[in-house]
């Protein structure tokens, strides 16, 4: 290849730009502030877990971690269930009716959160869902539905009619067909949707910021954001928070990388 040397240089430089800050953060989470300022790139002098003890113990990030796990798991599962039911129904509704339902649900993808968050806030207030994990799950489901229906519906429409019919001939009702035939067949797209929702909902800051007041109900991004005021320049503590907040998603990325790329690009196709 003609541009081979330039290519290598560009790629190597960018690889460094991605890797170095991440390494600095991980190493930094084991350092003291003076040590970080002294040698930001160096290995930590000891594997001291002091920062982790402070962040998880005194700063209660363990509670935030728990909240994030509960809220995200429930949100992803519920969104997937409701959206896949809809996608299945739509895929089996022939003609314009199916398209109309699909189009109506998917239209929501083009509405930015800021456009309806205020009436949503008022509605959640009336229903007593503010400042609760349940409320966060509910809003996550609402906001995640359009894109989930978009990805799942797009996939289920491509499943051949025969698959639905064969199952019916075997005497399965619609729910059985959905659960034992169509969902297993849609696994790649279900996985991609799950990852997309997981990343969005795990990292979401807006709705916790709007809804949550009680310190013990904060999720990780909100708890982290509030670190900022407290430890203005205590970077090692901020970095420790970053590592803790990122860990589950990084582990998932390493294990399920294929689905991440599929999920986060099919989710991106929502211009």
């Amino acid at each position: 290849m003609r541009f081979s040397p330039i290519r290598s240089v560009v790629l190597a430089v960018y690889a460094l730009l991605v890797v170095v800050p991440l390494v600095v953060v991980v190493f930094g989470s084991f350092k003291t502030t003076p040590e970080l300022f002294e040698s930001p790139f160096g290995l930590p002098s000891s594997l001291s877990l002091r920062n982790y003890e402070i962040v998880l113990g005194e700063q209660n990030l363990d509670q935030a971690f728990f909240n994030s796990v509960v809220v995200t798991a429930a949100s992803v599962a519920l969104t997937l269930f409701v959206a896949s039911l809809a996608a299945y129904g739509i895929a089996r509704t022939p003609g314009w009716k199916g398209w109309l339902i699909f189009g109506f649900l998917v239209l929501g993808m083009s509405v930015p959160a800021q456009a309806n968050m205020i009436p949503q806030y008022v509605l959640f207030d009336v229903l007593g869902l503010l400042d609760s994990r349940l409320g966060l799950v509910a809003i996550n489901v609402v906001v995640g539905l359009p894109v989930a229906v978009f990805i799942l519906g797009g996939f289920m429409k491509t499943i051949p009619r025969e698959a639905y019919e064969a199952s019916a001939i075997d005497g399965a009702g619609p729910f059985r067909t959905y659960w034992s035939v169509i969902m297993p067949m849609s696994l790649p797209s279900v996985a991609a949707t799950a990852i997309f929702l997981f990343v969005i909902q795990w990292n979401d800051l807006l709705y916790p910021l709007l809804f949550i007041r009680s310190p013990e109900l904060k999720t990780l991004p909100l708890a982290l954001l509030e670190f900022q005021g407290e430890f203005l320049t205590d970077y090692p503590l901020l970095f420790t928070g970053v590592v803790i907040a990122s860990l589950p998603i990084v582990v998932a990325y390493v294990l399920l990388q294929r689905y991440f790329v599929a999920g986060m690009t099919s989710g991106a196709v929502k211009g």
Partner: protein
Amino acid sequence: MTTTEVDPRQAATPAGARRRRRGRGATRAHPALLLFPLPALAIYVVFFAIPTVQAVQYAVTDWDGFSATFSNVGADNFRRIFTADDLFANALLNNVKFMLVVVVFQTAFALLLAVLLVKNSRGSILLRALFFFPTILSSVSVAFIWKFIYDPNFGLGNRVLDGVGLDVQLAYLGEASTAIYWVALTQVWFHAGQMMVIFVAGLQAVPAELYEAAELDGAGRWAQFRHITWPMIAPATAIVVAYTTIQSFKAFDLILGLGGNPPKFSLDILSTRIYTSFANSEFGYAAAESLVFMAVIAAIVVAQRRVLRLTQKDV
């Protein structure tokens, strides 16, 4: 759709057809199928569609979010947005600067990376996975990482400048006139890999024969890119540009992470501005701002499509 074709089964008497279908039990959609989209539709209508419409109703009031009474102020909120609100004008200007830089640089850079990594070799696949990585982090995490890079006293940025022998030390986010561009750089680092993946998919769909034929005709590398690649990846480019635009209007968390809550004047963008109005209990006014916000995004996305189409048409 089906009326033009004569289906033999439909040609039979309706009763007969129905009986036969029921006998086969499969070809007709089960009536219960209509129930499946119902939960999604109910949730969506109550919690999403109606609130979206309500935003329009709020936008013409002076409601503060908790008073029992409020009055209808007509177009006053909009008049204030366009003529009397320096904060909104500032946020809009910051947001447009931010968006332009991110869209141009992130798209170009993502495309460059995609071109360099289009082949499915081991090394390319590994690098793609690495470059994609920042996208999965939370915006607040990314903001903290870059806060340290941009720290004027101890940060990595100035240290690197020093290390390569440059006698410049930058203030980064501390310099009001350029602060928003440093956030734009962070945004590019954050999401270039995600857009690269979309471009890789687009590039891999271009038939190799086109390049072979062009090579035979003596077309150079740039000519091949200009006349084959660029027009052929038009759908991918449209997606990337539209998505990047929307992302750069939604960079809410990144701004709060880097610029504080509420953000500094120099880093305030539309989404943070709306949130701040809301947090100040100006519900009606914030709703009006959010409608203008939506209109701005829609107008920009439409304009971009036009511009892109012009560059792609000339093959």
